[in-house]
């Protein structure tokens, strides 16, 4: 057989199965979190909502259909409430669920480091007590800036309970949409997005700016927000710094007792405005300080929370000169040094003046006289008993009075809300009662429910 001649063009032979195919692709989009590695980083809940919106599905549906598979275990059971859980601020916390969700979303999107959108990196270092707020808050100016950039997101910072101001724009955070939200419709639902009201679907950035008079935040609020923002922007969150051992707070406090209070833990407790036994429990590692306490410590030591969590004891040397101030801080003078007769007449005069208006407790009396309440009890036991009895009677009377007044007040507020076309929910009523009622607790649920029922019935 003769050989053929032909041009040098390639005649590549391949089989259908041998074609180059794409390696496995991520199931969800590779959506980059906003404000990554900064103090103004996005929260995991906000990220999840944006991811679901990018895929044009409801966040609850995505949680139930896709994330549950990744999480496995309990999430696969029919009773698992991932549909609602995906909107809860608790997802931004430091619990196991946060870690599981972050891990699942990392697998689904192939974005690395999503756990830093939660407080999970601080798990074991801080307590979850008092860490997260129980409702959504936001800075309208930050949201507006985000919208102008094309990506509006909710910051993790806003979900910290102690943070009440935006450190960037120095305004108070807004807690409720004031756009006159209509009742939730059954046929349509508002879009779940970081920049929209979850009740009425109104834009929180634009509408809030018109309806709410943005107040400048107080210096203290800004200071607290700045301390938390510094923590969020620290290397602890970025995974670049690792805490020493399991309990850096214990190391830090022990060092503080030695350096500042010269070994006297009671002095340091007074310096920090704490109970001595509470400080001892922290030092012994029995439990971790609540987050607000950490902020308070950071303010007193004039350092960052990250310094405390990494046991950065160098800063304590600067504070060692405060020992003299600590010693001056003794708040009471022993009563024995005073003349009891003069004190008695003084106390009787004070009680006569104040009792019709308000009842003083023994501590209040001691504070006004500049003496220790325990000392009053020792030196003037009969008068101390009388003060205690009067105060107790006043408290009882106040409770009875409140029981009578509160339902009327609740009904009034509920009627107002119904008249405005709003459903009198617990949160709305709490918002209206702010300043009028000292404590609006969930224990008064029955009174609240009765007022709401009555107001709605009246309207119908």
């Amino acid at each position, binding site marked *: *057989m*003769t*050989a*053929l*001649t*032909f*041009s*040098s*063009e*390639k*005649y*590549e*032979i*391949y*089989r*259908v*199965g041998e*074609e*180059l*195919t*794409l*390696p*496995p*692709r*991520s*199931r*969800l*989009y*590779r*959506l980059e979190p906003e404000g990554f590695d900064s103090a103004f980083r996005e929260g995991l809940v906000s990220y999840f909502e944006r991811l679901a919106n*990018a*895929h*044009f*599905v*409801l966040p609850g*549906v*995505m949680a139930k*259909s*896709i994330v549950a598979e990744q999480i496995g275990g309990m999430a696969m059971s029919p009773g698992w409430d991932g549909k609602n859980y995906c909107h809860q601020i608790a997802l931004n916390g430091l619990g196991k669920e946060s870690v599981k969700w972050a891990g699942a979303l990392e697998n689904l*999107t*192939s974005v690395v480091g999503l756990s830093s959108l939660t407080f999970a990196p601080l798990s074991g270092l801080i307590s979850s007590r008092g860490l997260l707020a129980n409702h959504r808050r936001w800075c309208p100016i930050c949201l507006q800036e985000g919208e102008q950039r094309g990506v509006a997101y909710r910051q993790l910072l806003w979900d910290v309970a102690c943070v009440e101001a935006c450190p960037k724009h120095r305004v108070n955070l807004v807690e409720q949409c004031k756009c006159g939200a209509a009742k939730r419709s059954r*046929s*349509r*639902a*508002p*879009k*779940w*997005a970081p920049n*929209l*009201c979850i009740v*009425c*679907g*109104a*834009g929180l950035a*634009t*509408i809030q700016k018109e309806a709410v008079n943005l107040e400048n935040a107080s210096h203290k609020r800004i200071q607290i927000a700045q301390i938390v923002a510094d923590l969020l922007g620290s290397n602890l969150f970025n995974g670049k710094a690792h805490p020493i051992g399991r309990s850096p707070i214990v190391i830090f406090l022990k060092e503080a007792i030695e350096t500042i209070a010269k070994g006297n833990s009671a002095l340091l407790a007074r310096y920090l405005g704490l109970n001595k036994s509470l400080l001892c429990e922290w030092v012994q590692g029995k439990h971790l300080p609540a987050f607000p306490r950490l902020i308070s410590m950071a303010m007193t030591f004039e350092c960052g929370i990250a310094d405390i969590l990494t046991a950065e004891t160098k800063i304590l040397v600067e504070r060692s000169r405060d020992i003299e101030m600590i010693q001056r801080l003794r708040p009471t003078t022993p009563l024995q040094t005073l003349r009891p007769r003069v004190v008695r007449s003084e106390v009787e005069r004070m009680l006569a003046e104040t009792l019709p208006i308000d009842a003083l407790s023994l501590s209040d009396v001691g504070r006004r006289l500049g003496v220790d309440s325990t000392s009053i009890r020792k030196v003037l036991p009969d008068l101390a008993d009388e003060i205690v009895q009067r105060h107790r009677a006043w408290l009882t009377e106040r409770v009875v009075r409140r029981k009578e007044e509160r339902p009327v007040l609740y009904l009034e507020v509920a009627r107002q809300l119904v008249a405005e076309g709003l459903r009198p929910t617990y949160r709305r009523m709490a918002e209206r009662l702010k300043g009028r009622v000292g404590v609006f607790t969930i224990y008064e649920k029955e009174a609240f429910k009765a007022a709401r029922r009555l107001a709605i019935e009246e309207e119908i």
Partner: protein
Amino acid sequence: MTMTIPPFESKNPDPALLEDKDQGTERLITDYETIRIRHPRVNHTLQILKRSMRKRSGANLILLLGPTGVGKSTLVNSMKKMVIEDNKQKILTDSSFIPIVVVDAIASGERRFAWRSFYERVGNALHEPLLDQKCETWVRDGREWISKNPKGSTVAALRDSIETAIKRRRTEILILDEAVHLFRNTSFLDFEAELHALKSISNTFGVVVVLVGSYDLFRIVSSDAQIARRIKVVHFSRYRPDVEEDVKAFRNTLNELQRHFPIHGIPDLTKFSDRLQIATVGCIGTLKETLEGMLERVLEDGGEWRMEHLEGALLTKQQILTIQKEALEGEEEISNCVFETGTFDSLDDLLIRQGRTGKSFNSVPARQRKKPKVV
């Protein structure tokens, strides 16, 4: 430059396979069916396609045309392979990146094109999850609302999600195979809407949309002047018997294909190359099918080759004439529109015509022109 290749030699199959009349024969045939060849015309067309897809080349809508059985689907697979190889590094670093999507625009059997089914197919190719749960977002009184159809996703919601998926997955090329199904049997209004839907996908996200089909696709699409101006035509032509280079390339392709026959005892078929080129209208896809048919017959007869086996596998004369007619007419029709085939000489008659009338001959509005009926 020329080079020599070793003469044809077929492989010795496993005797056990030959003995097993049912399973063995089937396996040998199936094995041969999986073989694909990248012949010179494939490489040439791929290069043109690559050039036509460059951003600065203007149009984002490309028609890849060729006669029936020329191997358009195989070319599309080669295209996919090429794009994946070109973006290898990006694909490895970004696991959400899907540079190319190939979808068959299948006929749904309905009067109108089934966009829902089409979007679902594109969505699957883009790894889009929960295609039956897509929501529609709408704004009323400055508020954004979301509505979910309890029976499944609406077409609008699907469309929105697919457009976003193309953007998010950074898809550069969307290939629609058998694209003629998109437009067949549609009314003029539907046709316009469908074309503009494709144009919108292409323009909004900068994705190159390649419509693959035979010449009747060109007849439909070019009836809209606005679209015709923006479209690029890439021709995947057959090997013509009147072109010497084509005759040579066809013979070499045949030789390469016969070298991979799973059995021995078949004579060198290149001596029938000229006749096979006529019988297959110069289409390699048809040639491959003919060879497969021949192999099947040979194996059924116990592995002994006879001329009847080859002749039995050929298309009928009527079929050949029909394909040839379609190919010739199609080639004639698109001769002035094919990408990278423009010459100054071809504009001569245009100059004469403009001189006579004083205005462009293409001044009839698109709506007044009648859409040709596709058989």
